[in-house]
């Protein structure tokens, strides 16, 4: 192909080399084929640029990003002694790295390069050639004026501590911990509850294969507990996080269990003999009982129980001690105190999960008011063979077997009043419930009230067809209300589901004995506090924000902090597991590098100008600024700083400088970009 060679590229030299700053700038204006050249008079811009102060050479070229274009820059750096390069082309998000690398190859520090975005923000955004050319000149001028003030910067390198903290012992966290431990790295797994297992431990069967959750989960839980590379910290919470990628210091509070873990054998006699019985709102979601000294479930990991001081007779009234008396190994320790553990880790994986939407909030469905309206998690416990009814499907009275069951989809999800998003897992769970009702109560009729059936997953659609074939009724329409107010014969003593069947275009009243509300997922109540603790972002709904929704879903904007599972957004088990593995792989990759290269766009404080006012201290979202009490000055911990510049802008003494975005550089760019807008200088005349 007869492409233009660098020799034929036009150029215009400027006669006063390095006039103002002694810097030698080369300006390269890209045609981008016709993409820029059709709208911007690129030759004119280049010629004009060549006449600007400090500009030694200005050229225009068909494709600057091509290897020939890059060679052109490299040659000029070496032959003309350029020490600044400006390329006017596409967005820096497109090719900044390309040209920085080209500069580096020619021996120029890559941070002495600047880009003017005259394509995305120029030629592609208008048809007005004159205006686009004028705007391009302004952008080039801004870039040149900025470039002469740019400083060479060196990337930062930090060591990566090979230990990892995983927060949350649900299926995502367990998977991440096991993957890393199996790869030979040490993992600290912190779980808030008394046992690991998370939501999955409460489930009976899992869709679409219908294998029992406990059968696939409990072996993993045991693996975690026994793994030599995993330190399990249950009944524990992260209190504080300091440091930066590769070097985090995490303080964990181990809440007192009042059980000496060294002595406890997990025999369960204390649980058996404890005289206090209370409704278990946590694991059994209000359907079952537990004791004041309890384990969530028999296969809990670790096996040690925990004493609930709010209900324990001894803690409330100073009497009882039944557990202490019956314990064969004297493991009960009423004097146990919370302990604090400091961990040194290089990376942190957050797998803190979700909470179920409180179905009371959709008051027209009657949960909490109408006895036989259940939530999906209640039903899940009910059908679980190890659950409060030992797997029998019964009404709230604990005896009556329902004849007609209504399952309402999208409770709290896909609802503008609550959560606009789809909770992803509930459609399939609802299908699973329909199947389980048929299985346990073969004569029962099941109605599914849905908006759309979202069965997008491997073997999901097939499962839907299976449930259809089993005779479940599907009624398409959002349920208006669930009521016990009978209007006609056949409705007395029943729950009536009022719904518009949108497939036949009619209002229907379906009497049932039992209603199951498929309550959606929502972010944890304390998700925002947790996000602030670890220095990452949340979206409107409280889900943790990943770096890129598609291409980087388990890494956050904060280096060294990763997310996995439903804390990042609603997810079923397979996706949570996939994310747990993905996060572990990313961490393993980082550990393998041993050191990590970081962008040097960072803030620094000139101690001699710092007044010690501490305004910056609280502004930093990453706790990257420490205050030296002795010298009364603040200091930026470089590796912690993410380079946002909030502190730079706030410093009243201008003592903080933001590398690559210094005040000097930005002000110069403002002046340059407004080169044609400056008002003629006028003088104030004293009144005569």
């Amino acid at each position, binding site marked *: 192909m007869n492409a233009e060679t660098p020799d034929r590229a036009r150029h215009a030299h400027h006669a006063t080399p390095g006039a103002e700053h002694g810097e030698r700038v080369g300006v390269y204006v890209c045609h981008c084929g016709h993409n820029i050249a059709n709208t911007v008079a690129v030759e004119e811009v280049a010629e004009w640029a060549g006449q600007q102060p400090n500009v030694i050479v200005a050229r225009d070229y068909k494709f600057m990003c091509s290897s020939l274009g890059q060679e052109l820059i490299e040659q000029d750096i070496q032959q003309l002694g350029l020490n600044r390069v400006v390329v006017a082309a596409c967005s820096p998000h497109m090719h900044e790295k390309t040209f920085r690398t080209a500069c580096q190859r020619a021996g120029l520090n890559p941070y002495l390069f600047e880009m003017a975005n005259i394509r995305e923000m120029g030629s592609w955004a208008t048809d007005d050639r004159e205006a686009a050319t004028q705007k391009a000149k302004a952008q080039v001028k801004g870039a040149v004026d900025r470039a002469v003030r740019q400083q060479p910067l060196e990337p930062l390198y930090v060591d990566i501590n090979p230990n990892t903290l995983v927060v949350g012992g649900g299926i995502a966290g367990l998977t991440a911990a096991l993957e890393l431990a199996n790869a030979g790295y040490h993992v600290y797994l912190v779980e808030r509850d008394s046992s690991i297992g998370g939501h999955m431990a409460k489930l009976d069967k899992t869709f679409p294969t219908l294998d029992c959750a406990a059968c696939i989960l409990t072996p993993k839980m045991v693996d975690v507990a026994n793994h030599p590379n995993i330190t399990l910290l249950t009944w524990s919470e992260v209190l504080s996080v300091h440091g930066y990628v590769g070097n985090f210091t995490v303080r964990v509070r181990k809440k007192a269990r009042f059980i000496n873990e060294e002595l406890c054998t997990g025999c369960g006699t204390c649980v058996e003999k404890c005289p206090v019985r209370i409704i278990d709102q946590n694991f059994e979601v209000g359907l079952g009982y537990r004791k004041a000294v309890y384990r969530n479930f028999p296969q809990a990991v670790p096996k040690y129980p925990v004493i609930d001081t709010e209900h324990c007779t001894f803690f409330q009234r100073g009497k009882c001690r039944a557990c202490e008396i019956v314990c064969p190994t004297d493991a009960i320790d009423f004097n146990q105190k919370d302990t604090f553990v400091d961990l040194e880790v290089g990376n942190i994986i957050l797998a803190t999960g979700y909470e179920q939407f409180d179905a009371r909030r959709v008051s027209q469905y009657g949960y909490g008011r109408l006895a036989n309206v259940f939530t999906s998690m209640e039903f899940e416990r009910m059908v679980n063979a190890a659950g409060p009814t030992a797997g029998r499907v019964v009404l709230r009275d604990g005896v009556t077997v329902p004849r007609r069951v209504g399952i309402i989809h999208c409770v709290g999800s896909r609802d503008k009043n609550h959560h606009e998003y789809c909770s992803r897992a509930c459609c399939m769970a609802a299908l699973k419930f329909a199947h389980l009702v048929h299985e346990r109560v073969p004569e029962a009729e099941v109605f599914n009230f849905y908006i759309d059936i979202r069965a997008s997953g491997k073997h999901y659609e097939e499962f839907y067809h299976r449930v259809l074939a089993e005779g479940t009724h599907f009624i398409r329409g959002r349920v208006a209300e669930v009521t016990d107010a009978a209007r006609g014969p056949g409705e007395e003593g029943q729950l009536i589901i009022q719904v518009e069947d949108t497939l036949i275009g009619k209002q229907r009243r379906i009497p049932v004995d039992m209603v199951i509300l498929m309550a959606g997922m929502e972010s944890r109540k304390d998700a925002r506090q947790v996000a602030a603790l670890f220095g990452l972002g949340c979206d409107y709904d409280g889900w943790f924000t990943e770096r890129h929704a598609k291409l980087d879903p388990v890494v956050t904007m904060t280096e060294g902090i990763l997310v996995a599972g439903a804390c990042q957004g609603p997810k079923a088990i397979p996706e949570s597991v996939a994310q747990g593995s993905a996060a572990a792989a990313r961490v393993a990759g980082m550990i393998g590098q041993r050191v990590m290269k970081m962008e040097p766009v960072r803030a620094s404080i000139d101690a001699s100008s710092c007044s010690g006012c501490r305004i910056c201290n609280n502004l930093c979202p990453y706790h990257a600024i420490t205050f030296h009490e002795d010298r009364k000055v603040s200091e930026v911990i470089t590796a912690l700083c993410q380079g*946002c510049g909030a502190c730079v802008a706030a410093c009243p003494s201008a003592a903080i400088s933001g590398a690559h975005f210094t005040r000097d550089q930005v002000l110069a760019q403002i002046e340059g970009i407004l080169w044609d807008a400056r008002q003629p200088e006028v003088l104030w005349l004293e009144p005569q």
Partner: protein
Amino acid sequence: MENEFQPIIVGFLCNWCSYRAADLAGTARVHYAPTMRPIRVMCTARVEPEFVLKALREGADGVLIAGCHPGECHYVEGNIKALRRFTLLKAMLRQFGVEEERVQLVWAAASEGKQLAEAVDRMTEQLRALGPLRWRQRVLGEQPVARHALEVEVGG
């Protein structure tokens, strides 16, 4: 059209959301007024009030600051810090007699190229209605007497 006043807007765009929104507007060939001259900052929280004043002093007719939506900031809540600072700056500009429309803070996510383009168009129309800022006369109270005119007077 020929003699229509073309305002000049300096746009401070945050690297993560709004700069990408402007990139997207271009990539999607959304055409908007060529009045906004972009300056990339890592975060809107980096925008010092001084930058805005400098731009107005240097001849811009308006300043647009664009950042991520609240809650979506790359730096957790830099945009909220920018908002707080912006609120104070607006109160000051009001005292200078600078119209409210001249300095605007908008949120534009990386996917909202169209919205950012619309914000530029809207602002351009508002500035057209207001006319040039002329900071020196408006804020500094300078009389429009050029230096050379003075020199002639003194010299003569």
